[in-house]
């Protein structure tokens, strides 16, 4: 039994030692032939905060449940701190889960809930009491031990669920959409709280969410999944700025997609023709062939409005302002190209107001070459 206590670390320096979690060619097929997880491999280092991100049905929760031991892989292996865990039941794995609906035991007090893991492992009573109370203090609910779960607010229940898992000092903490049931404001608060606690205890967190904003806020690394496969693994900056697939560009943040044909591809630089609208330049993979149909993705914040070609960057297109939506410090401007393509631009309110752009006005939109990413379009 590991001693219960906390190692202070400063987050996620990748260490060269044994990773906390390794998935090797993991496959999960459910009866009825549905492949929920389709041959994924992943390495998670000690102390990392890794998020599995994807739409519902992408296999992220199934992956988490297989690590927890609640579901069993059809093929492949799971290695936790160097130990293969196939056939090891959930209750003998040094892994704990924070469930989506918290799954607090309704017939037990908060104290008994948090103490559950330690008592089933037959720790001494005094020791249990000490650890539980320390944990309740850590989640800022000291003195709540005697209450029943139903007497707590959603946010408080969430923190108790976290404490109940963390008190066992697992090798890995698994979190299955733990903030899904909270309202927006509370969710933001809890995100910061989670991050603080994770830094504090230095335990590896594997976090499942479909909320890309949450993933960007919390994670050291993000694993983006779709249809049971991994689309991309990277830091928040990498997956946002350098999405490797069209799916990632679309799922993480907001992207505009402009359809065109490759005129010329040299190394990473691509020139794409939009027909009558002219050519645009951007970067793309080396596998883009001349004449192939591509989608060029551009983030709304990369697109700027202009009236004069002299103030423009490398790419320029003519457009009409369809709609202007005030978002506080920002304005979302919806423009339409001559071929009917709708694009979203985001700009500072002050700048748009100063220039006095109007709805229905013909304008130029412009963006730097490096901000356009070309992906092969699925025909």
């Amino acid at each position, binding site marked *: 039994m590991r001693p219960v206590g906390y190692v202070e670390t400063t987050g996620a320096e990748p260490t060269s030692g044994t990773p906390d979690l390794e998935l090797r060619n993991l496959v999960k097929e459910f009866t009825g032939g549905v492949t929920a997880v389709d041959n994924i491999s992943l390495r998670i280092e000690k102390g990392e905060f890794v998020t599995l991100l994807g739409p519902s049905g992408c296999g992220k929760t199934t992956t988490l449940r297989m690590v*927890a*031991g*609640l579901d*069993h*892989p*059809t*093929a492949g292996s799971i290695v936790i701190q160097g130990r293969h865990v*196939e*056939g090891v*039941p*959930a*209750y*003998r794995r040094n*892994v*704990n*889960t924070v*469930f*989506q*609906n918290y*799954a607090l*035991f*309704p*017939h037990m007090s908060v104290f008994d809930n948090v103490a*559950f*893991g330690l008592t*089933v*492992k037959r720790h001494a009573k005094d020791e249990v009491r000490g650890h539980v109370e320390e944990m309740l203090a850590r989640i800022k609910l000291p003195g709540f031990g005697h209450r*029943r*779960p*139903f007497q707590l607010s959603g946010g408080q229940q969430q923190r108790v669920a976290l404490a*109940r*898992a963390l008190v*066992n000092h697992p090798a890995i903490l698994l979190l299955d959409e733990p903030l899904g049931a909270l309202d927006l404001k509370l969710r933001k608060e809890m995100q910061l709280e989670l991050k603080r606690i994770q830094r504090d205890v230095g335990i590896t967190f594997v976090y499942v969410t479909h909320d890309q904003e949450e993933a960007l806020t919390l994670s050291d690394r993000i694993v983006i999944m779709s249809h049971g496969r991994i689309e991309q693994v990277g830091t928040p900056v990498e997956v946002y700025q350098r999405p490797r697939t069209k799916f990632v560009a679309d799922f993480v943040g907001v992207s505009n997609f402009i359809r065109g044909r490759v005129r010329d591809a040299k190394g990473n630089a691509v020139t794409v023709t939009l027909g009558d609208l002219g050519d645009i330049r951007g970067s793309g993979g080396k596998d883009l062939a001349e004449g192939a149909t591509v989608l060029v993705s551009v983030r709304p914040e990369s697109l700027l409005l202009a009236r004069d070609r002299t103030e423009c960057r490398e790419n320029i297109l003519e457009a009409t302002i369809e709609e202007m939506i005030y978002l506080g410090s920002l304005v979302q401007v919806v423009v339409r190209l001559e071929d009917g393509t709708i694009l979203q631009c985001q700009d500072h309110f002050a700048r748009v107001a100063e220039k006095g752009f109007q709805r229905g006005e013909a304008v130029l939109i412009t963006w730097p070459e490096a901000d356009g990413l070309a992906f092969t379009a699925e025909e």
Partner: protein
Amino acid sequence: MSQVTARAAPMQAGQRTKGAQAMRDALIRVGPALLIIVWVLAFVFAPMVIMGIYSLWQYQNFEMLRNWTVENYAELVTSTIYIRVLWRTIQIAGLTTIFCVGLAYPFAYFLARGVRRWRELLVIMVMIPFWTSFLVRTYAWMSILGEHGVINEALIQLGVIQQPLQILYTTTAVIIAATYLFFPFAILTLYSSLEKLGPSTEEAALDLGATPWQAFRRITLPLSAAGIQAAVIFVFVPALGLFVTPALLGGTRATMIGNVQVTIFKNAMNFGLGSSISFVVLMLAMLFVAGLGRSVDLDKVYAGGVGDVARARQPEHLRLRALGIYAVLMYIFLYLPIAFLIIFSMNNSPTASFPWQGFTLKWYQEVIRDPWMINSVRNSLLIACLTALISVVVAAPAAYAMVRFRFPGRTLLKQSLIIPMIIPSIMLGFALLILFTAFEIDLSVVTVLIGHVTYVLPYVFFVVAAQQYGFDKTLEEAAMDLGANRWVTFRRVTLPLMVPGLLAGGLFAFTLSLDEFIITFLLTGTLQTLPLFVWGMLRTMVSPTVNAVGTLIVIVAFVVVLAAQLRGRLRRRQGLTAAG
């Protein structure tokens, strides 16, 4: 062995071990249901089979000769008496069903839609007569319909009639009382279906321009069809097996098949003819249920409690005031017989009827001093406790397994358990009587207990299963995730969370057993229970002591129902039970 390893194993194991594993896995899942399977085979199926055989054996001089014959069925068809009684039974049961469900539907509709704040109390007020002694409620009508009963006295006083009307000892009396007896259950069944339906679809129809009548006819009525079917089955089928009501209120003119059969079984010991009649009645009941088509989801029916009152809104646009007045009349119908029962129990007159002769408690004193009465109460409580205990032990593991696991024969088990609920309980009594006689088992406390457990078992099963449906499986996963193995998980999480369901099932069994008359009557040796004691009183003397006993029973039922409801309400508020 844990299921976890059993499921993980096929990854490495070959085909043969896989088969063995699957076999063992199936056994683990069937395991908890074995007790109930054995019980149903021994005490439902075996008696039915024996009854089938007996109906084809020859009877002579109080003995069954083992010659195969169809003469029992021939006698049934050729002697007009049985056919006539059978036809009368169907008519009485049919009219009772029509009145009962017809009167109950608007009432249930009112409860589900017309009230909000008082709904819980109003529903409990329907439940109380339901849980009050069947015998006592039947008896209450004697003093209302009798020659010097409340109705005749009132009509004479008002000058409407000069001579008392003959209502008692007619089929009319039986139909009125039977309607009254099954009324609460019909209301509760319909209410449960209407309540679950919620008002939103009806509101949508109104919003789309339907008149209230159109909205009701085209939306609510079709959507509550399953509830109506359930109510029809639960009134018609037990009405086919009525015995007490025609015996007390019907006289010779309204004899029903149950009365004829009791004579055949108990007095003539003609098990051959009795079995053939039983089979015909069973076929009738089965055909009726099958004819209604859609099968009734009993585990869902019993999940209905008072429902989520907070969620319901009061639709003001509906013309509910008229329904409100109707509901008041129906409450009067529900409580007037009980009110007279109580009034006459304190009337200083040797007959339980008007005029009022002054207040007295002497009938109560007489009852409380009666050692036979005390003895029968003690026996009844003992039987009820044992019945509750045994039925929960037999039914609960099966309910647990049925909700969680798929195993071979799962659906068959569920359907076999519905059968005892949709055959009149008197038939179950006859079948068990035949079984015990065939194996020469003396009638005693044990046979009564077997009868009671067999009778309540399906109800306990479905009540426990209904509560299990609301169980959140992630709680067990959470326990395992925190290091509890299967046994610790079961002991510390699953079992404590099952307790409300077990208590509800046990309480249901206890109450049914306490009030059970006909099976006890058929299967008892020398054992005297409270309903048998009351029956004895009714057969020998109609004096206000019966009213005193009845009033005491009503008070106990009132306290028990109220306590159970308040407890359930408290638990729901604590979020301990999902299904209530």
